């Protein structure tokens, strides 16, 4: 094959190809490489390959360096490059050595393929199927680090965190890593079902147990057998249900409504709540023995505002996902949007972020999400927050310190008032003013 034919072939393929000499200078750069990197051939030739390619592999895991050292070709090593727009482009790279007719090494060739679309589809699948938790935050990474260990044990897990912070996703992650992963994952929101129905939902009933029970119905414990039962909003359980749940957790057995037969369950129990269970125990609203029974391993998910790295990361994930779902080409956020995202308090956490971005993608009529695509309440809340006057700040600080001191004194108002150096009636007035629950 002559040189002209080889070059025509290299120019017609969709994989990027470049060659380098022994000094790591680029000697050939095909048109697909131009397209993927955003750099023209004339600008690339003669320059150091790593300054053109700008990949995360260049410094420590360079495929060509590996090939030169070991004389082994590298095939489909995965990584990413950063293009001139600052965007990460996921690539799969292969490399080989180039020899002249005498068998002397004259350089190397690297071929690379843009696999962003494939990786994106894969991540979408993973996100939905397994509920994999993704994070860039150091705090979250520490929590996720222990999840596999927790998953392997059979202990009851309590997941705490604000609403929308990903408690169910975490529970699904634990399930997918556990020995019961081939069993079912059954989730039930204890706050969403009236107490009278919750018992039959959890334990099931037998035919004739009550009017209308014309057939046997398995409960969630039965459905989750050899799998995982996720009890969300456990703090909302009534005292009666708490007793029944305690028995199941202790004995691993229960009786369906209308049955005299005791059933065994091997379901792994994961509980979640956004309430402060310790406080509920102190207030007598949650049974202490049940609390100790479920509080074997506690995983606390920090709110989104405390892991700012995740805001940007997740925002991009959701942007990609909703762009695909809505068949749009929205691929970035304006600087103002990012500033707002990073300074906003995200009371609804990840769920709120997801919804905000879904709305933005639907409303966005260009390739960039701007402030006008975001809910006006969000910008308004941010503005209100950013123009707090001194009095407002004092009130916030005062409320916080009263709450802390009350907690310290187990909600004994007299002791707290003494500690705060104020009269008891003044403290009562402030508790009422700030709507602090005691």
């Amino acid at each position, binding site marked *: 094959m002559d040189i002209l034919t080889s070059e025509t072939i290299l120019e017609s393929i969709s994989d990027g190809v470049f060659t380098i000499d022994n000094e790591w200078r680029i000697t050939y750069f095909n048109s697909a490489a131009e397209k993927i*990197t*955003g*750099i*023209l051939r004339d*600008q*690339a030739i003669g*320059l*150091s390959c*790593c*300054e*053109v*390619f*700008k*990949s*995360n*592999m*260049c*410094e*420590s895991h360079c495929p060509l360096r590996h090939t030169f050292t070991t004389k082994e070709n590298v095939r489909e090593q995965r990584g990413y490059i*950063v293009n*001139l*727009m*600052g*965007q*990460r482009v996921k690539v799969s790279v292969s490399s080989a050595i180039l020899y002249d007719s005498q068998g002397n090494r004259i350089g190397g060739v690297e071929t690379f393929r843009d696999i962003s679309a494939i990786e994106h589809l894969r991540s979408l699948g993973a996100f939905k199927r397994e509920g994999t938790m993704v994070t860039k935050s*150091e705090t979250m990474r520490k929590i996720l680090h222990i999840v596999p260990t927790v998953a392997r044990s059979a202990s009851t897990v309590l997941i705490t965190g604000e609403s929308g912070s990903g408690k169910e996703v975490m529970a699904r992650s634990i399930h997918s890593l556990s020995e019961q992963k081939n069993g079912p994952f059954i989730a039930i929101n204890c706050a969403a079902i009236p107490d009278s129905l919750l018992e039959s939902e959890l334990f099931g009933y037998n035919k004739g147990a009550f009017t209308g029970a014309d057939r046997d119905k398995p409960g969630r414990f039965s459905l989750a057998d050899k799998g995982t039962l996720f009890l969300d909003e456990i703090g909302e359980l009534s005292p009666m249900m708490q007793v029944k749940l305690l028995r199941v957790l202790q004995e691993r057995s229960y009786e369906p409504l209308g049955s005299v037969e005791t059933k065994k369950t091997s379901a792994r129990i994961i509980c979640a709540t956004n309430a402060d269970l310790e406080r509920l125990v102190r207030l007598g609203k949650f049974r202490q023995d049940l609390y100790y029974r479920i509080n074997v391993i506690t995983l606390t998910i920090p709110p989104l505002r405390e892991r*700012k*790295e995740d805001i*940007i*990361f997740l925002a*991009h994930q959701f942007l990609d996902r909703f762009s695909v779902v809505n068949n749009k080409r929205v691929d*970035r*956020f*304006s*600087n103002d949007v*990012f*500033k707002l995202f*990073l300074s906003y308090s995200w009371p609804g956490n990840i769920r709120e972020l997801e919804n905000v971005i879904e709305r933005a993608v639907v409303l966005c009529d260009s390739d*960039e999400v701007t402030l006008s695509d975001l809910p006006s309440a969000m910008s308004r809340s941010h503005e209100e927050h950013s123009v707090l006057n001194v009095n407002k700040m004092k009130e916030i600080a005062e409320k916080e310190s009263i709450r802390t001191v009350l907690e310290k004194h187990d909600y004994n108002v007299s002791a707290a008032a003494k500690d705060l150096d104020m009269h008891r009636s003044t403290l009562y007035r402030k508790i009422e003013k700030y709507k602090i629950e005691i």
Partner: protein
Amino acid sequence: MNLEMRQVCRKIATNPSYQALRSPKYVGTKDAVSFCMKLAIPTTRQRIAPLFDSATNIELYATEGYGCDCVLVSTLEFPEGAQQNLETLYHIPVDTVVCGAISNEVERLLVYNGVEVFSFLCGPVQEVLKGWKERSLHGYTFSMPGCLRPHHCPKRSRDNCCIRGERRKNH
């Protein structure tokens, strides 16, 4: 501040070259460490590392500002890449990063945390430090391949970057 960072700060404060840079009124005071600007440059083989996100070696320089001398005070090693260690840079705290390519998400985090970023620069570190002293980092000389005009401005780096002659939109 963790132990490692305390050691870095102590190293900065006790470096004789760094001491020389500082105004006498600060010597021995608690402001000794925080007085000078800290400049971080990811490097590999005496050149600016091609990508900040995965840079494993970051040289920390003390300087009194853009257009002034820089003194090497420490070298930080991040085997997992700089992106995983941004907190360390904030803790020092690093005031300016001069680097090669950088992804938008990492750059935004740096800028959000008050770090100025001179990005998409390339060349030997000594030349770049010379460029810093001569205030010529905004010129063509240090632009990475493909950047058609000077655009490396602190706090708004790359906003005016051109690709194939087209002016980029702010984002």
